[in-house]
């Protein structure tokens, strides 16, 4: 078919664990010599590891594909092979069109060079022609919003400015196939949004094929129309983005609803449903502060979208039991109206200035029968929260 942009057949990548140790001259020479003499035929303590095995799929032109999977599932290896950074051990793949890969923003940036020079350097590294950069230069600079510092060496930039500059270059790539790794994790939220928007616009309007790897499932859902779920180096599921995400969520092992922590002050955190309320509490020890402990939280849906959160600064604190040395700090959430399903909880604990503990999606809770409604027991496409709604007709 002519509209296939990427076709992958039986791709595999093998790594030799322990091979790295053999990479000085003497070891390598030694093993070669031993092999020659016939000593140690099977003694080589090299372990084979297949990071990817039997990967086959096809991607059509204009599709935006999200690759999801747990750490170590082979996502990055797959991207590295498709962007030709490493070669596959088995199989073949075909790419139709010019490819740009973005496994990192600001690849090759040099601190001593000015912003202007780095735009040219980074753009060329990403595969743009000099003339192309020249033509887009003004647009890149204004997108980054750092016109004033464009002739200042990058080492004097703040880290945010560097990221903005790097992103602006990347956002102006115009390949037919774009391969993007988890690069959107950096940069401030506002700018991230701008870049996601730009990517979105490009893939939808101009028929560009995008492959996108991310842990940010919400971003995958928003940007992609197709999903590939990798598990232990093999394709576990291919389908529409939402179905793939569902498959991924169902096959995933969730964090516990209570964790013990090896920390001087924070000893354990747990979350539990108590009838229609949700309780989050932490056990603290050696709390030698006069100020109340500061427990902040976020509740996220199974795709990782933040639903809501709070902290004592926002909702006040009962200080009557202060000071205390050991004990629980807890918050009880009422009026939640969450549908049945699994939810993540992120927790921060600190003294209001510094965090002792930070656990992103460190807990999960299975919500069951929180809302009294027979008709929508599961999380559906109506969303996770089921508000109390009354219906009536007002005659006019």
């Amino acid at each position, binding site marked *: 078919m002519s509209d296939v942009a990427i076709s992958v057949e039986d*791709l*595999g990548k093998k*790594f030799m664990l322990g*091979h*790295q140790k053999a*990479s*000085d*001259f*003497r070891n*390598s020479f030694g093993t070669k010599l031993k092999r020659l003499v016939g000593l140690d035929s099977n003694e080589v303590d090299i372990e084979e590891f297949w990071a990817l095995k039997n990967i086959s799929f096809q991607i059509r032109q204009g599709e935006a594909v999200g690759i999801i999977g747990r750490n170590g599932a082979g996502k990055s290896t797959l991207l*590295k*092979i498709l*962007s*030709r*950074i*490493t*070669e*596959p*051990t*088995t*199989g*073949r*793949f*075909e*790419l*139709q*069109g*010019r*490819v740009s*890969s973005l*496994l*990192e923003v600001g*690849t*090759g940036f*040099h601190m*001593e*060079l000015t912003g202007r*020079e780095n735009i*040219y*350097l980074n753009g*060329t*590294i*990403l*595969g743009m*022609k*000099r003339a192309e950069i020249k033509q887009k230069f003004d647009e890149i600079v204004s997108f980054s919003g750092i016109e004033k510092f464009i002739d200042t060496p990058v080492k004097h930039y703040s880290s945010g400015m560097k990221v903005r500059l790097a992103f602006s270059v990347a956002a102006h790539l115009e390949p*037919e196939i774009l391969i993007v790794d988890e690069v959107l994790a950096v940069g401030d939220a506002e700018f991230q949004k701008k870049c996601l928007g730009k990517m979105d616009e490009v893939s939808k309007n101009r028929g560009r094929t995008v492959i996108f790897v991310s842990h940010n499932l919400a971003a995958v859902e928003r940007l992609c129309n197709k999903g590939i779920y990798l598990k232990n180096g093999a394709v576990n599921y291919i389908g529409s983005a939402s179905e793939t995400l569902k498959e991924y969520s169902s096959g995933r092992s969730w964090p516990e609803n209570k964790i013990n922590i090896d920390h001087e002050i924070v000893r354990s955190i747990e979350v539990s449903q108590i009838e229609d309320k949700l309780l989050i509490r932490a056990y603290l020890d050696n709390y030698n502060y006069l100020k109340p402990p500061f427990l902040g939280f976020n509740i996220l849906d199974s795709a990782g979208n933040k639903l809501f959160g709070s902290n004592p600064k926002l909702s006040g604190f009962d200080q009557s039991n202060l000071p205390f040395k050991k004990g629980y700090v807890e918050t009880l959430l009422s009026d939640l109206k969450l549908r049945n399903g699994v939810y993540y909880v992120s927790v921060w604990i600190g003294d209001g200035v510094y965090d002792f503990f930070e656990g992103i999606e460190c807990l999960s809770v299975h919500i069951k029968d929180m809302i009294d409604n027979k008709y929508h027991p599961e999380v559906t496409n109506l969303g996770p929260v089921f508000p109390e709604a009354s219906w009536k007709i007002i005659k006019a």
Partner: protein
Amino acid sequence: MYKLVVDANKKGLTLNLKELLRYRDLFLILAYRDLRVRYAQTFLGLLWAVIQPLATLIIFTIVFGRAIQVNTGNVPYPLFAVCGMASWSYFSFVLAQSGNSIISSQEMVKKIYFPRLVIPLSKALVGFIDFLIALFFIVVLLFFYQFPPSANLIFLPIYALTCIISSLAVGIWLSALTIRYRDFQHVVPFLVQFGLYATPVGYPADMIIDNLPGWATVLYYLNPMAGVVEGFRWSILGGQMPSTYSYISLAIVFVLFVSGLFYFRKVEKVMADIV
């Protein structure tokens, strides 16, 4: 439409020089970066590129010219030495730079594809500055000593080209070897230091041919730069033709260059995995 096929089952090495040509912009800008960064935040700046060879020239003149009194015929010693240093300094620069070049740009190598050969090649381009400065020294000394350059000057471009190829050949080999075996990081400075004396930079090659047995002379000319330095000097200052031994050097240059390209391609396949 542009199409790319990668097949793990296809055996054999192709050099893919066409692709290299498509990446010429990258090659140029990497060289530009190195040049810009080389003397950044130094007080004397580009002057360092003049001071370093000048200092070497002075020491050579004192040691070989005055103390040992090497016989350079009718050629004033400083002029003799500077003609040797021009090609040697380029060679040693490229060697020192390209050996480590891929390791020092490993961040790039791991994150994006481009023909890796671009990296050592760009180092060879950066070295032209030193080469030009040395040529400038030669011109100044020719005028200073009122020494007319020989008619062999028409051969200079050929020897300059051979010098570049020779430097690239060894540079490419070393950059690929250093990836595989980090030992070569320690070999390179040694090679550069050792080579300065194992190459007719500060003394005429005749001294070797006249004083050493035949087999040792052959060994001497296995050094690819021996023939290049000798020929380079001959094409400027004239005098006796480079010895027939020097063809050994030129053959070695060719063999090293072609084999280096292939070895580099072989290592390139696993570069991002082992760097």
